[in-house]
């Protein structure tokens, strides 16, 4: 498990939020490697609906920052074809809830080409996928449906949680020879700023990040829930360890098991619906490999098994520090 932020080792930093970190990283990677191309809807002159590609069209032109027709499956299908020919394509899908039309290409070609070509054809493609609620968006704009992706082999699914994490994880994803889905917590896009190294760097796509060390209970979480877990950790009467999974597929199982074996308690915090959410897999792993170390049952603080509600009541759907705190308190108070 990675224990430190990239920030500490660097001399020169700038204040960035997540969306600035995305923009800086894309520009850096495009300057470093001329085969990096962006393909997506509105990524051109307007700079993306979140302005994550702002200025790149002007710098690199329409053949490297490619505005696509409004067709997610067409975008992913042509991007896979470009990647099969050695281009490093970064696809932007505007919202996770818009990804479903592309599911055909995802299942049939993106995740299968490397395997069914016996390793002969690589698909070095990155999908940037803004996800999650809390921005008062309309329906289909706030979803966390990573389970559909993480259930499928042949693709990495990662989710950075801070500006510095975003830069290192996105750069590593673009350089990785396998397809990577980078889930970007869009409610953090313009959230907290932090100093981010200006130089290029990559972070591991295989390792979780230890956000906070503790001895009583482990909180397993990722993305936009990490700051909620941090608030909860301050408010509860327990020494909380927070593991930011960073990679949802494949999972850093060692990091999960090491932490839970140490604390003996486990709370899983995620935005997605509970049933068959990634928390189900994490809970299963803990039960299979660390049951005799548990001092309480595993609890999952998650969204409910409903469609993402409209923004009038979405705050009651979304887990937060309070829900996480209740879960922590419950497992702390439990006795076998």
């Amino acid at each position, binding site marked *: 498990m990675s224990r430190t932020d990239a920030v500490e080792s660097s001399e020169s930093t700038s204040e960035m939020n997540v969306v600035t970190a995305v923009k800086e990283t894309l520009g850096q990677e495009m300057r470093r490697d001329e085969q990096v191309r962006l393909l997506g809807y509105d990524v051109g002159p307007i700079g993306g609906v979140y302005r994550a590609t702002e200025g790149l069209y002007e710098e690199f032109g329409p053949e490297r920052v490619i505005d696509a027709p409004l067709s997610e499956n067409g975008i992913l299908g042509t991007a896979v074809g470009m990647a099969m020919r050695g281009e490093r394509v970064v696809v932007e899908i505007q919202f996770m809830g818009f990804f479903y039309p592309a599911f055909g290409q995802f299942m049939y070609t993106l995740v299968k080409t490397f395997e069914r070509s016996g390793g002969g054809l690589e698909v070095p493609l990155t999908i940037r996928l803004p996800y999650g609620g809390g921005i008062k968006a309309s329906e289909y704009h706030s979803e966390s449906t990573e389970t559909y992706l993480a259930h499928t082999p042949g693709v990495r699914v990662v989710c950075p949680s801070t500006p510095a994490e975003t830069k290192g994880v996105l750069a590593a994803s673009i350089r990785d020879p396998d397809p990577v889905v980078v889930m970007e917590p869009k409610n953090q896009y313009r959230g907290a700023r932090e100093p981010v190294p200006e130089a290029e760097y990559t972070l591991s796509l295989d390792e979780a990040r230890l956000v906070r060390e503790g001895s009583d209970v482990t909180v397993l979480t990722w993305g936009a829930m990490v700051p909620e877990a941090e608030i909860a950790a301050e408010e509860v009467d327990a020494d909380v360890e927070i593991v930011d999974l960073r990679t949802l597929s*494949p999972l850093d199982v060692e990091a999960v098991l090491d932490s839970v074996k140490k604390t003996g308690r486990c709370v899983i915090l995620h935005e997605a619906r509970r049933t068959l959410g990634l928390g189900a897999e994490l809970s299963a792993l803990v039960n299979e490999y660390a049951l005799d170390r548990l001092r309480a049952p595993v609890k999952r603080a998650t969204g409910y098994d409903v469609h993402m509600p409209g923004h009038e009541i979405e705050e009651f759907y979304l887990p937060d520090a309070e829900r996480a705190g209740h879960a922590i308190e419950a497992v702390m108070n439990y006795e076998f």
Partner: protein
Amino acid sequence: MSQWTEQRPAEDFHRILAPDGSLDGEPPDLSAEDLCHLYRSLVLTRAFEDKTLRLQRRGELSIAARSRGEEAVALGSAAALSADDWCFPSYRQTAALAVWDAPLDRAMATLMGLEPETVDEHLPVESPPEVNFTPTYVPLAVNVTNAVGSAMADRFSDRETVTLSYIGEGSTSQGDFHEALNFAGVYDAPAVTVVQNNQWAISVPAHQQTAAETFAVKGAAHGVPHERVDGNDVLAVYEATKEAVERARAGNGPGLIECVTYRMVEHNTADEPSVYRDESEREYWAERDPLDRFEAYLREAGHLDDGAIEEIETEATERVDDAVRRAREVPASAPERMFDHHLHTESWTERHQRSELRAELDGRNPFTDFTGEGLDGEDTASKEGRVGGDEDGSDSTATDGGTTQADEGTAREEGVATWDGGERR
């Protein structure tokens, strides 16, 4: 009897060879050698596919899908490509592989269901075809979208390479077909798409796929120039494709070609056409067979005689038999090979599941790990295999194209060849 299941009147298309082999137009500029190579490839294709049927009946192949009577479509169109071009075939285009001399043993081994790594290991590509072939696509229409992406890569990189892909008339009802053509049109991609209209998509006839007058006109909605040709006339198919390919190569964008043919045989060996169609249709189409027609033309032109034909047929049979022999000699894949080539690095999950399978194969209980530390201390492999290069800016790639487990050297040296010998450039 419905001989033409499209809305369009019969035989209203580009044709050079009449069904009896006589000239109905100006033939393309092909040498006697080129023409005989086309003929030889057609004979080879038919011999290969007929062999797959026999092997399927014997249980050596789980399924076989033939292109009998449709061979001229893939043959004439693929022949219009040049070295370094790309081809994204579906499963009824054996003739495209044959005309570019793709290794038949690898194709046969793949049809026998062997893992691609096993095929690579035991039947390595000696001389790859000059045209790059992707593995044959099984899901429908998605190859066309990938092919357009391949063409976009060429255009954006200022390469003069063209990408050809194939789709059946039924699959033009899929969104991917339209999305692909739309992108091809918007970006002027050097992508040529061939619709192999054999008039039956399993049990559904062409007129139930579309109310459009033809399949070719579907290109119009996407601003893609289109043409409709006699798909049983290899010269017409070649000429139309050549024109589209060279237009694309010159930077003038994509093309769509509908080749009208007929599915003379079952959809595949799991199908029984007599249940849903009047088999007397076949008599009409048998008179339009692409092999008979082309052979008559070549005899008339003085390029072929009985002796040459016999030689070509004997050679085809020998090549197919040799391919079958070589494919049969490939040893069975290790079951653990199923884990190969999902990602470039090995995850905890993969490592554990590999060892579970290994335990099962060894007659041991795979469920005895209650700590996550692995079965019997076996789980010591490859933390070094992790990628990501922490915070040092290094490239996060494993370059051996294989998994990181240290067993039996499964990673191939060549690394980039596809099953039919196409090579990534």
